[in-house]
């Protein structure tokens, strides 16, 4: 299992948080998601054989949020 940290643009509405969380959880290969509302970051555990950090970034972009950087840690 691998971990990824995505840095997003500023989040201002608490409902964005739920949207991003739900959106990623519904993506194949994502095991757990944590959205840090105040820091504007998303931390996710995912199965590297099923999905990629880039694919997860695309999901968030698709929801209408800016992804500033993606940092993956293979474990």
């Amino acid at each position, binding site marked *: 299992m691998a971990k990824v940290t995505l840095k997003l643009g500023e989040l*201002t509405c608490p*409902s964005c948080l739920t949207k991003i969380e739900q959106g990623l959880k519904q993506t194949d290969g994502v095991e757990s998601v944590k959205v840090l509302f*105040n*820091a504007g970051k998303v931390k996710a555990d995912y199965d590297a054989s099923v999905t990629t950090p880039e694919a997860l970034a695309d999901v968030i972009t698709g*929801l*209408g949020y*800016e992804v500033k950087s993606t940092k993956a840690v293979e474990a």
Partner: protein
Amino acid sequence: MKLQQFIAKHSQHILYGTAGFTAIGLLFDYAFHIEIIGLIALIIASIIGVFPIAVKAISALRYKIVSIELLVTIAVIGAFAIQEFHESAIVTFLFLLGDYLEKKTLAKTRQSIKDLTAMAPTTAQVKQADGTVATVDVDDLDKGDIVLTHVGDQIPVDGHITSGQGYVNEAAITGESELVAKKAGDSVYSGTILEDGDLTITTDQVGDMTTFGKIIELVEEAQDSKSSAEKFIDRFAKYYTPAVLVLGILTYIITRDLNLAITLLVLGCPGALVIGAPVSNVAGIGNGAKNGILIKGGEVTAQMSKVDTMVFDKTGTLTVGKPEVATVAYFNGQTPDDLSAYLTKVQEIEQNSNHPLAKAVVTYLKAQGVPADQEAAPQVTTIKGRGLYSEDEDLLIGNLALMTDHNVQISAADKAKVEAIQHQGRSIVAVAAAGALQVVFGISDVLRPNVKATLSSLRQAGVKRLVMLTGDNEQSAQAMAQGLGFDEIHAQLLPNEKLDWLEKYQQQGLHVAFVGDGINDSPALAKADVGVAMGSGTDVAIETADLTLMNSKFESLYKAYVLSRKTNANTTENIVIALAVVALLLSGLLFGLVDMATGMFVHEASILVVIFNAMRLLRMHQRSAVNKENHQVIYEK
């Protein structure tokens, strides 16, 4: 979805557009009395304004979330249906304005953590295998890399100095901007700034694994970790918003009064309720982080503000934790020379121990020029809370309890000699060989500055019981604590006995904070309602404790206590304000005093009120600095 990004990018333009057309509309309507132009302008304003709100509402709905935006969208559509264009324009404008101001002010409350992250280094000067120096991104660094830093540089890694010396500003880690002198062999931390000198550093940790990286991660997570009150509000809000929607629909079905129904939707928005509690925590935790106080989340501030009993470890917490040998007593009329063989053995055994007292003994013996093999690691048996025993050498090193356990005979005169040392507030390391007492080292540790003043400030602030728990002997504990104002002192405790005391207090219904130095106190830190670590940046301290005083300054404890209480009170205030506003608006509606536009105005104003209220927490530093001066006065008296 490109549409949302477009909206996000142009949110300010949309706001201006809505504002402009609303103004034109109202002007033509009321000032020039050309109602048709006024009407058209208001319709345009409403449509521009409601567009981004509706898009957000729909995208939230796709994930089955009934959002505030949905309530507003329905209300605006309803206003269109009954041709209340004034109301629809003003409501959308106020909502967008509120959103914009919320974003701006929210950013202010998050500023502390932003300032912290901005201190994170980005590049490093790394010495390459061929002797040249290259600029490397910090993410590409590895352990063992040789990093060069010059005056004014930010230290990019956690590491130790291999050559050079200088003065470092460690504010990023400790919150204190006093310069710290560093020389070869010393540790340096990522994020700190080299103010003077040149350093060559061997990398030990990089990126997220550095102390600074961990602090940032911790603060980021802390700001989002919710107290039970917040979790309750969250659950409440989750059902509240749909409930308002249902209530609005029911109102329309029963009364057939669309105006009343949509007004209800606008008034029922839970904005201040959702934002109120988290914004207090963000501001409070952010303030702490900037001042070297790491608070792990909203629950910690809630627990800390309930604390009525504070339990302190002695060594390393109340004292500096760098003990020195102050007295040495020899027995049986022997001189140091007679004992040199034993002293060599003592040094060879003690140099393998991490115990602060053992370190003090080794430092002393080295300074006395006692010869020893620095590689030697004799076989010993450690006896917990007592000391140790070397079977090969028939040597006992430890406290008096160890001597008694092993039937070492101590004459009344010798006993008096040892007790005299203890009464001076010194800890004892006794050495017995061949069943007889040979040497006793009296070790003293310096009290941290401002302990007395801080304890009395804490008591004034509401802590009812102050307790000292120590593994040290009774006499030295009593001597050390004299005049500090402790209610209880319990000495000669094993680590698990400290836990028993904590449990006892908790069973009495007391809310207990344990203050320790974080390394050997981990179980107690975890057991207490709030574990406070005097951390000098050690990983263990940061991970186990609920609250860490990064600068290891005792007076920060008072600041942490007051900050926690203020933050907690602030959270409560915000929840009360939010609930009061909703109650006020709904009762206003019942008596027909509130229309949709005023409702929206009050609602948005209440959001700003809670944010401004939280921002008061950001300014708390100055006020407690004044307190610190008072401290000084009390202390010197």
